[in-house]
């Protein structure tokens, strides 16, 4: 009458299934309500983690809906590591495929922002270079260098006004979102991640710098909408450049 952990888990994740034989109360009888403690702990624990991770998605879909959705998510995507602070990596693609949220086309990108903010919060600490180290370079020299970008820096480009939607759901007096494509950069100059509105060309440029392209290479492939001075200014003020190489 061995209860394997596979059998325990299967019954734990499916409330409709029977409690595995061999799990008993002190009188040797079936212990269904006792087994329910684990069913409840696992569902509540993982749902709570998702609620903490995606407060803006939750606000957009409503508490009750989010709770029900979390119950589906946690069974399809149980955590793959014990690091609960990173639980929910699959949420963007889940939201894109989940029937009831499919029509909220901007939701996956909002979830990406919330994931990126958490990754930035826990990212490695880095020491930024002084702005002068970059601004002192002659234009030709500048085009030949690569910039090491802090690991907290991430970009997201969207067909939707994700910066405005995020602000409207996190700031009391934020303006109403207007339908347009927006891109954002997530940074962490101190300990608290911040969200910055950029454009798609800037996002492509920052990603190229992160990948190790020279400044010259990043602008060679960029379109007219790239304002390199503005991108470098933003990176420097956010302490995002850690080395010139």
């Amino acid at each position, binding site marked *: 009458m*061995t*209860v394997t952990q596979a059998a325990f888990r299967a019954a734990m994740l499916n409330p409709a299934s029977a409690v595995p034989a*061999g799990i008993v109360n002190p009188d040797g009888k079936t212990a269904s*309500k006792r087994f329910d403690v*684990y069913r409840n702990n696992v569902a509540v624990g993982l749902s709570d*983690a998702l609620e903490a991770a995606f407060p803006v998605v939750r606000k957009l879909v409503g508490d009750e809906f989010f709770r029900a959705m979390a119950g589906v998510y946690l069974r399809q995507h149980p955590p*793959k590591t*014990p*690091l609960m602070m990173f639980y929910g990596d699959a949420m963007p693609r889940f939201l894109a495929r989940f029937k009831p949220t499919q029509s909220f086309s901007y939701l996956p990108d909002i979830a990406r922002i919330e994931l990126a903010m958490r990754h930035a*919060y826990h990212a490695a600490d880095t020491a930024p270079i002084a702005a002068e180290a970059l601004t002192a370079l002659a234009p030709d020299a500048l085009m030949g260098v690569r910039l090491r970008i802090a690991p907290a820096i991430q970009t997201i480009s969207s067909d939707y006004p994700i910066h405005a939607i995020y602000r409207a759901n996190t700031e009391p007096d934020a303006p109403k979102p207007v339908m347009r494509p927006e891109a954002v950069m997530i940074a962490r100059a101190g300990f608290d991640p911040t969200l910055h509105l950029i454009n798609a060309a800037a996002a492509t440029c920052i990603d190229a710098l992160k990948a190790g392209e020279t400044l010259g290479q990043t602008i060679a492939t960029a379109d007219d909408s790239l304002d390199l001075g503005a991108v470098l200014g933003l990176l420097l003020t956010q302490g995002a450049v850690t080395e010139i190489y």
Partner: protein
Amino acid sequence: MFDATQNPTLPARPGVGYKPQHYSDIMDNPGPLGWLEVHAENYMGDGGRPIAQLRHLAERFPISVHGVGLSIGGEGALDADHLARLKHLISWLNPASFSEHLAWSTHDSHFYNDLLPLPYTPQTLDRVASHINQVQDTVGRPMLLENPSSYLAFAESTMSETDFLRALTQRTGCGLLLDVNNVFVSATNLKTSPQDYIDAFPLAAVGEIHLGGHDEDEDETGAPLLIDSHGKAVVDPVWALLDYTLAKCGTKPLLIEWDTDVPEWAVLSGEIARTDRALALAAS
């Protein structure tokens, strides 16, 4: 067998499970607080505020690292990546103590974020002992293993929990973390005597004692079903069980665990003061 007196780790003073919202209170107004406990998994990021706060706290207080995700009771192999993260944390922090649970939480590479129970048999004893040896070899120090809260029993169990824990400490040299709230919860749920459990417990191996609150419910037969929630104050029968335990084993490092519905510092301070009085009583 692990001998707590030969392995001084934490001071025999009150400790508390650290919550970031209490950072300033702890730094400014620690009262009798002698040490802090942190959940290992919360400090496995690469950097940022959590790690910075922990470095500051460790300059002031002995730290106990308490893991909740190693799945030592799991049927499968231990997660090598998680063990490596644990080794890294223990290497840089050099905490006063490291502890984990007699439970499993991972199966087929999926983590369920709860402390799940296992039967006590010669086969599970072999498996858990081998996992503890692997952990201790990896982190380079003896660990403490915590007794679980039980809600149900396994018909296949052939050993008592206290015999199982005693055998583990004899075979691996690990110490034990005695959670007296868990003892009370399990004894109520399984209709046994919490004092008998303490009498049978290998108290010489205890390196730390936990205290926490529980929720009260009933099973389908109307029997009491206590749930280890860490979301309330410690109840009087658990304080009495603590006094009973300390009278037998002398003072130990005592921890207040409050992980859900975390109250303001003044409330935790009251619980810490009460552990301080329990220590004074045991020392008198």
